[in-house]
């Protein structure tokens, strides 16, 4: 049984946003209009955060792509009264849209703010509906949605492997964000398969750059980050406060 996970190398990430648009294209994420941004209800299953460090002229802007962490002890899961938020056997934190009744408890309990509520019916002009991915449900009003690690791609690959009577090969498919990423900063795969690139990146002793976001909360995220390399970083340094 695979255990899906992701590694994001902050030293490779250039903040281009290819992952953000690729995810929207793959997963039928509603268009984030200007109004949606004003309401602070933009839906980006993976988003690019930017943090400032320092002051002019010694200032740095740093990027971090943030998808759902797919925590193994996910705080969003136990609070769902209808089991719409649950954990799959393959380690994915999943949302069952047609169970969801929109209590938004899960969203309140998520420290990473990667769960998004559909306050309105998503709208596309008729012609743009031609682009929608037939493998992904369009979420309706009143439903919580989030990154699924491109579950439709996982299911398709697993189905194909089953048809061919074989096990999944290491890295035989990837998520939309990882596939688009021009610098190869995002790597997705099976953490339990020693031949997969994620497992190698996570396990390799060479890579002392690994960490997880808000790891101290003890939720065991499945998304690993590799630290940004900075020539001037103090030996054990954290960059300073700024939102």
């Amino acid at each position, binding site marked *: 049984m695979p255990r899906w996970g992701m590694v994001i190398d902050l030293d490779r990430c250039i*903040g281009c946003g290819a992952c953000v648009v690729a995810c929207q294209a793959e997963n039928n994420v509603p268009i984030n209009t200007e109004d949606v941004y004003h309401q602070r209800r933009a839906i980006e299953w993976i988003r690019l955060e930017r943090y400032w460090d320092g002051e002019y002229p010694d200032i740095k802007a740093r990027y971090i792509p943030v998808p759902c962490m797919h925590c193994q002890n996910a705080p969003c899961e136990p609070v769902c009264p209808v089991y719409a938020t649950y954990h799959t056997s393959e380690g994915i934190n999943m949302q069952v849209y047609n169970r969801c009744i929109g209590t938004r408890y899960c969203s309140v309990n998520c420290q990473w703010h990667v769960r998004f509520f559909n306050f309105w019916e998503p709208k596309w002009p008729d012609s743009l509906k*031609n682009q929608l991915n037939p493998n992904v449900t369009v979420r309706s009003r009143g439903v919580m949605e989030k990154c699924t690690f491109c579950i439709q791609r996982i299911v398709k690959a697993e189905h194909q492997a089953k048809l061919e009577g074989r096990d999944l090969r290491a890295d035989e498919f990837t998520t939309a964000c990882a596939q688009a990423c021009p610098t190869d900063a995002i790597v997705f795969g099976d953490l339990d398969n020693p031949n997969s690139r994620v497992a190698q990146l996570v396990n390799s002793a060479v890579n002392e750059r690994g960490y997880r976001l808000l790891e101290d909360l003890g939720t065991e995220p499945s998304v690993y980050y590799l630290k940004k390399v900075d020539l001037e970083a103090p030996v054990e340094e954290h960059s300073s*406060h700024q939102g």
Partner: protein
Amino acid sequence: MRRREFLKLAATSATGAVLFTGCGSIGNGNPPSEFKIESPVWNPNDLRYGRDAWFATAAPPSIGGYGIIVRVFEGRAKKVEGNPDFPINLGRSCAKAQALVQELYHPDRVGAPLRLAGQRGSGQYQAIGWDEALGQVAGLIQQAPGSTLLVTEPLNGALGAIVEQFVRATGIQHASLEPDERVVLREAMRRAFGVESFPTLDLANARFLVSFSADFLHTWISPVQFARAYGAFRQGRPDVRGTYYHVGPRLSGTAANADRWLPIRPGAEGLVALSMAQVMLEEGLVEEANAEPFFKALGLTPEQLAADFAPERVADATGLSAEQIRELARAFAEQRPSVAIAGTSAAASTNGLFNLVAVFALNYLVGSVGSEGGLILNPASPLPDELPANRSGDAYRRWVELARQIAGGQITTVLVHRANPVYSLPPASGFQDALRSAGSVVSFSSFLDETTMLADLVLPDHTLLEQWGLVVPDPGPGYQVVAVQQPVVNPFVDSRAFGDVLIQLAAQLGKPLPWPSQEEAVRALADTLRGLGRGNVAADHPRAYFVTMQAQGGWWDERARAGEASPQAATAPANPEFSGEPGQFPFYLLPFPSDALGYGEFSHLPWLQGLPEPVSTNVWGTWLEVNPRTARDIGVETGDVVRVVTPQGSAELPVYVNPAAMPDVLSVPMGQGHTAFGRYAEGRGVNPLELVAPQVERETGALAWAATRCRLELTGRRMRIARLEGQVPAFQLEEFPIIQVTRPRT
């Protein structure tokens, strides 16, 4: 009625409905039913229900012309990915390529040929048939071919060949429009290295990179190609991590990735480069033998360099300290292979050509021209005559002249394909006013953009995913590459490929072109490649050859590389000049190409409008970036609306306090301020080109859009800027840092 016939009928009627709604709107409502059962798509013959089909094609030349593959499901394009086999991007892609499907299915596409039905500029059009439209255009050309001007994007590949043949056969005039700094870069490449194409970088093997204002990871010439190499540059080698310094007046989305950012005065890039050279030579950090081509490119003697460009002499003019310049020079000389590039605002100064030549010539000094880990020059197109790579666009100076000719009646008919001169040229060029008064204007655009709004006839073009083409990516990966474009879906509306239209027009004018259609031109030119007898495609039969090319997305020959480079002409040092007295206009106005919207050619796509600009995280609008201290001194904060006044004009913009802005530089993103171009582009923000004075680069005549000064006036009003920052409470806490940093391993 059989199912297939029913679908056919449904398809026809759906297309018919488009015809009758006039301005080509395909559907504005959001009917409660999610999907129509009948498909508005004319399904291809080889359709297999329930199965994905992937087609290889190529991204637009303006974003690098790299290979993409498109997922097509039941006749509809669903998703764009990078072509994993294509040498430029090896499976990688960018946000703009991802959004191509939104262009294909855009609700405001022009659905059929249109004829003006009211005042010019009113946007009132009436749908007409293709025969009538073609007949009218043929008539216009026939009347006065010598007084007809065709405006396109730079010629490229098969479409370029068709346009060139058409221009030759009919005797009309032709001009091509591209961002002016590319015109300057082409001239710099010609002078410094004697090549006609853009360069690439062997970043995967480089140890040190210095970029002078070039936004090479987001907007500069071929971002995906450079980004892929950049990943390897940073973390692709077990023992080396490349170091990147950025020198320029703005911490751009690209510069934010630099290990060190050295803020300098706008236009001082070349001065810094010469000073670096002086340090390297003085301290004996570079071999004397490498100095000769450097001096030749700049027409300088070693004595002049030593006398005029020592760091202490130029420090004030650049905004850096002498020590900073020395450190930069030492890092560049010692951490080899090192490479230096310049672009974006460095080229958009009055001394843009000097800036570029001075920086690119640094590569001679460290032996990085055409060597591993250095600046890799690209060879010419494999078929330079039949299949042009991007031929240089025309400089701003020529557009002013053309505007004068249109206004003066020497040019009576203007045909425009894809380019949008009314938006892309500043009003000071006079082009917009000239076009208003032109005898006839015909547009071949897929959208009612600003230029098309002034057209009497609109003959809608296919979008990229609907047409045939051969593209010569510029820059290539260091060797010859040709990408194949093929229609991945049938045309979504009643549009026609521009090449087909030209071929038909030529036939009507009695001057037939060598090919019966754009597709045939592509096939014939691809077959000429077969005649070369080299490259990665091996097949004897023309059909097999072309199918192989289609299946893998193109043709390339890794052995066909550029020859030795040497400087062809000298470019003398020059200082930047700015419009506006510093006393009256204390700030530099620095427009910058938007990461997602480019120069405004992608503003009609909602995914890109909604994609946050990486540094400010702003979306859907225009803003003015102000340094925090400057903002405090003036008494403004983020969201305050100020009036930006330049010698050319004024505009009201909301302030965004950018902690990394230079105190005397005010930056404004390009891309907004459209008055037409569909519902997602129209009526938001400001086009900064309306503010820039018509300063030109002194040697090429290109528009120097970074050469204007400005002042601020308070309006007392406020507005909300739509942006990502603040959507979620996310803070870098001391005890739980979100972005952790570490020192490089030694």
